Every structure is written in C-alpha cells, then in structure tokens.
C-alpha cells in the first residue's frame, strides 16, 4: 500500500525507536549519576513542598520493600521487643518501656544498596548497646541476630558493630512514629551501613556465639555492609 507516497519517505519511526533504545541504555549505564541528581533535586524541592508530591519523583525519597506478601503490622500497644539468647536476663519490652530508656537522636542519610538515598533522615530511639547492657551479655558472645516479625527477614551484626553508638533501635522517624511501611512501630537502624542491615518490624534481638547470615547475605550481599565500602559500590559514607 502506498499512502501519498509521492516523495521519498524516510524511516523516521525506526530512528525514533532506535534513539529511545539508545537513550534507555545510556540511562541504565548512567543510573547512579541520574539517581543522585534526582535525589538532590527532590531533596531541595521537598523542603518547599507542602503537597508531598516531590516524593513521587523517581530516585527520590523512600522505596518500600518487604520480602513477604504484605506489610506486617503491630499496633504500638500490642508490640513487644524480645532481647534473648545468651543473656543474663531475657527482656520483653513494650513501646512505653523503650520510651523510658535513655533516648538518642541521630541524623544521617539513608542509603539503599539498590542506589536510592534519602538525605538527612532524623531518627530517634535507644542505643542497641543500652539494651544489650540491660539484658547482660554473657561472656564469649560474638554476634547479634535480629528477627523481623514478618516471619522471614533476619539480619546480623558482630558484637563490636552492634555496640557502635550509631546503631539504634528506633521508634521515631522525622519526628513522627515510624509508620507501617517504614518498619514500625520499632525497627533497627544501622546508620553507617546499607539499608538492608536496618531490619524493619523488629521483633527479637538474639545474642549468639556465632555468625548467622541474614536474609540478603544468603543471596550474596555483604555481611559488613559499610556504605561506600561494600557490595561493589562507592557511595559517600552515611
């Protein structure tokens, strides 16, 4: 069929398709730079954005992950945090118990191993070392395991890492109670490491005498997940 084919027609459509494929490939290759640029842009926009729409900018803000079928839920009233394993006194803490302990505030960028980064996140909670001391770690315990009440997710740190001052059990995110999608009411925050270490929906802290690799570590992610110095990435430290 010729449609007004009087003049030589050029395959513009094909060129547009190929051009977009090239653009897509370039964008995949330049992903880290694009994400960083968009993150910075959205960060500065969100400061003047009462609508919250800037959170929809790709590469900006939080992304929500769960390794199970749903976002688990515990109301702050029904929530209990167990500190167990090889400790002198097993603990079962309510959210009120956590609020009564010495509080720590911390502001840090949150960096995910998949690339997104949320600048200047304000966290508030209790130092993990505070809870470990309260429970009394028995001699010879080298590691701490974290269990999520989603029933599947686990994480772990060495005892030295767990005792750092920037490792917290948090219940407040940007001055608000931590929401369900963010791992509330209580989650772990390992500020200097990639996000997967910061176990969401935290239900149990187990003191153990050997390393038990966590959920993502079993898929090959690094145990010592320092931001910028692991998983083959070079992000700025958080």
């Amino acid at each position, binding site marked *: 069929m010729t449609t007004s084919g009087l003049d030589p027609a050029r395959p513009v459509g094909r060129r547009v398709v190929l051009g977009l494929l090239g653009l897509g490939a370039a964008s995949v290759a330049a992903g880290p730079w694009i994400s960083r640029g968009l993150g910075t842009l959205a960060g500065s926009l969100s400061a003047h954005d009462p609508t919250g729409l800037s959170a929809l900018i790709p590469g900006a803000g939080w992304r929500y992950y769960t390794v199970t*079928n749903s976002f688990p839920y515990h109301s702050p009233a029904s929530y209990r945090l167990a500190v167990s394993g090889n400790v002198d006194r097993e603990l079962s803490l309510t959210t009120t118990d956590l609020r009564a302990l010495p509080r720590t505030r911390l502001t840090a960028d949150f960096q995910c191993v998949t690339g997104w980064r949320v600048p200047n996140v304000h966290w508030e909670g209790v130092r993990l070392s505070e809870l470990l001391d309260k429970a009394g770690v028995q001699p010879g315990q080298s590691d701490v395991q974290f269990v999520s009440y989603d029933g599947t997710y686990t994480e772990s740190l060495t005892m030295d890492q767990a005792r750092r001052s920037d490792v917290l059990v948090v219940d407040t995110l940007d001055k608000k109670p931590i929401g369900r999608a963010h791992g509330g009411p209580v989650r772990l925050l390992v500020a200097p490491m990639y996000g997967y270490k910061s176990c969401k929906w935290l239900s149990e802290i187990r003191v153990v005498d050997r390393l038990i690799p966590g959920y993502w570590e079993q898929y090959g992610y690094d145990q010592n997940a320092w931001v910028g110095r692991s998983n083959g990435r070079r992000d700025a430290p958080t």
Partner: protein
Amino acid sequence: MTRTRGSVDPTGDAMPRRDDRPTTLPRFTRAETWVHRLTAAIVGVLFATGAILYDEQLSLLFGRRVIVEGTHIVAGLLLPFPTLVGLWLSPQLRADVNVMSRFASSDWQWLRRRDRRRARLPVGKFNAGQKLAAAVMVGAGLVLFGTGLLLIAPARINLPVNVRQGATITHDLFTFGLLVLLAGHLWLALRHPEAREALRSGNVDRRYAEREHAAWAKEQMAGRYDR
C-alpha cells in the same frame, strides 16, 4: 462491491455521484483492533500494579505484594505478544507499521504548521503526530521491557548493583514519560469519537477520514470507483 464507474448512468436520473459514496471506509482489520484492545488491557494492568508497587499509600492499601508483583511481571512478559502475533498473522498490520514508520514531506509540514488540522494537507493513513507517538510508544515499551527483565533477574545471577540501580531509575523515568504520552493519547481519543469507533468496528466515518486523512481517504475512494 462490484460497482464501477459505469454504474453512473448518464441517461438515468441525475443522481449525483456524491450521494453514492459510502458512509464509512474500512480502516483496521480485526487483527489490528484486537492487538490494540489486548495491548491496552495489558498496559492498564501494568500501570495499576506498578502504581501499587511504587506508592507507599497504595502499597499499604492493597497489601498482597506477591500477587501484585507477580501480576506485574506476568503482564510485562505478555506485553509484546499481541503485537508479535498480530504481525505474524496480519499482512495489513505489517503494511500499516511500514506506513507509520516512514515520514513523507507532508508529515514535516503537518508537524511544523500550527493550522495543521485546517490546512488540508495530504495526510495519509496516519498523521505525523500519530507516527511519532507510535514510534515513541514502541521505543519506550522496549526500554521498559528490557529494564524490567533486568529487574527480575534472579539474585544468583549477581547483576552488578549499579546495573540494577540504572535499570530501576530508567524503568521509573520511562514509566513517567509514557504516562504523559498515554494521557495525551487518551485525551485525543476522548476528543475523536470517530477514531474510537474506527478501532471498535474497523470502519471509519468517511467524512471524518476526508477531513483528517485526506490523501488516504482519496486513495480509498479511488480504489473503489476508479479501478
């Protein structure tokens, strides 16, 4: 229809030929209307499930992430099939794709002129805007399909995290771009009921075709009466 030029009887009543013209012209085959319908349905599913996976509020509202994610992946993998099967079975779809991918000089005029809809340009079966939009949809669709494949690559392949990050951001950006384009696509569909009817029945209102696709309509009419 076997009517020929001779059917205009010079000795008969002075029936003007104009009144003999059909009210509609055949525009799309069954295969083409079904390719469009199925692809539209799949794209609808992809946008709905994608939005649930992307947005916190929608995530919390729907839960059932395994099902939502699985649906998104299956729909994404199915996306090319209506078109591929259509291309395989329908010579007219192949011909139309060929027409769509080529730009004649009238297409450049159509793009340049602000009075493009009144200028009586010799527009073929598709105008330049339709051609460009189709090409962008195909290109963006391929990029989304490719980056989607990267995103579902099993963890044991050990895709470098930078590639995963690039695929994530690219998938997002092209989704937003395509969303804008499809919003325009729906807006135009809303304003052109004749075009919607053509995709439903395969036939387009003749006067609409003469207005919007003058060269194509003329050709169709010539095919009917002059050969």
